[in-house]
């Protein structure tokens, strides 16, 4: 493929790719919840949220906080959680990220990881507390392996998202 778009169709395709890759990859990560695997304990990270915050930390300008609202609705419906749970927690996380961005002039990869770790921790606490309100009396210790694995999965997600971002912006 040449570096210069030859026709208006090609321009349109590149523009579409430019816009759609972040949303499509997040939706793909959300639909990983449909993997036909039956887990006895919460162990795997919430891929949707992980990819979402990775995109948000890498490219703060592509999404507004309200984008997280409908993505959260999709996650609630696909993963079968209480309706409104991800809508609330994801949008809240985006607003906190906006606050952090106004306070923090500069952040590097390690700062991103730290912020993502905090977000993943509070997100898991939030899901646990909502489950508790809905009558699922589970000790918080059960969630700790999942939190640890999610935090360790952030570098993998970051590399994946970075590769997607390069492809998205490539000519």
């Amino acid at each position, binding site marked *: 493929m040449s570096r210069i778009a030859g026709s208006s169709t090609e321009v349109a395709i590149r523009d579409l790719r430019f816009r759609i890759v972040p949303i499509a990859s997040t939706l793909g990560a959300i639909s990983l919840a449909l993997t*036909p695997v039956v887990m006895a304990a919460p162990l795997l990270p*919430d891929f949707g949220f992980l990819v979402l915050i990775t995109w948000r930390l890498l490219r703060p*300008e592509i999404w507004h906080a309200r984008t997280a609202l409908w993505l959260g609705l999709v996650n609630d419906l696909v993963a079968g959680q209480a309706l409104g749970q991800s809508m609330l927690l994801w949008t809240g996380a985006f607003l906190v990220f906006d606050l952090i961005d106004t306070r923090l002039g500069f952040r590097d990869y390690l700062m991103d990881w730290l912020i993502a770790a905090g977000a993943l921790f509070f997100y898991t606490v939030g899901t646990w507390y*909502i489950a508790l309100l809905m*009558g699922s009396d589970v000790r918080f210790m*059960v969630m700790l392996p999942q939190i640890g694995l999610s935090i360790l999965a952030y570098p993998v997600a970051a590399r994946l998202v970075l590769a997607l971002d390069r492809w998205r912006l490539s000519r």
Partner: protein
Amino acid sequence: MKPPAARRPGFSRRAHYGLFFGYVIAIGGMVVAVLLLIISIVDPRGYGAIKGAALDVTAPISAGGRSVVRFFTGIGDGISAYIGAGSQNAALHRDLAAAQRGLMKAQAAEAENRRLRALLGLAQQAPDEITVAQIVGSTFEAPRRMATLSAGSAAGVRVGQPVRAPEGLIGRVVETGRWAARVLLMTDGASNVPVRAVRDGTPAIAVGRGDGTLELRTLEVGSNPFRRGDILVTSGIGGIFPPNVPAARVIRIEGDTAIARPLADPARIDFAIVQPVYQPAAAGPLELAPAQPVAPPVAAPAAAPGGRTPPRLQADPRYQPALQEPAPGAPVPPRAPR
């Protein structure tokens, strides 16, 4: 990383307003989400239609993938069975002989049971099934433990029905779509199953712990009635789960409580059986319950002459506050002066 330009919209008033309304939408959306959550908590079946429709759309994807997963695990099982064929054959012969002896004993016991039941005049409860379906997936990131079932209301599955496998109990249905349903597994923290130990009949409530195990709560204080290896079956108390379905095995004792593991592992089983609610009155709305006989309304006492206070209604043993209206035709007593 440089702070993004989009958050500093410069002097454009329009850009300022756009940013501001974006935040208004985001925070308004969060308020809506909180309301949705409150409704979900207060009335868990409130959004059943929406969630059922989403389940219908997503379940076929899991079901398709499930057959792929099963195909590959099947290849592995086939190869290992081929390698171990000789020793497996001998072992199976031994097991078969033992099973046939056990079967004969069980048949004799069954016949005796039937005779004793007939003597007692007990009705035979047929453990009928509503449908047989596959478990196609589960939640794996949330603290809730739910599985997706490949049959829905089109096959007669309703909310509240117990689900079991040949190996043992799995859970009960919490959401139904047209062609798929969601099952609350026994190991979910919100699941309570009344069970009893097979060895001595000790009743207990098996409560999920969210990590694949169950906690057994008994009424006994001081001593722990369970031992490691005890098998638990459902007791039928509560009317939802049919009695004598194998449920769990005790794996360890922790002080006053015992930890058990379900006998049926939803990750391994091929088919799940949906059964009707054991006693429909337990799950049905209150209006459908048979009407209780009530005492006839109390006739009002005759008006006392001379403005005397009439005898107190509460003294009458048949007095019911809800039925204080006088019977038609009975004289209405004058109100006592205060």
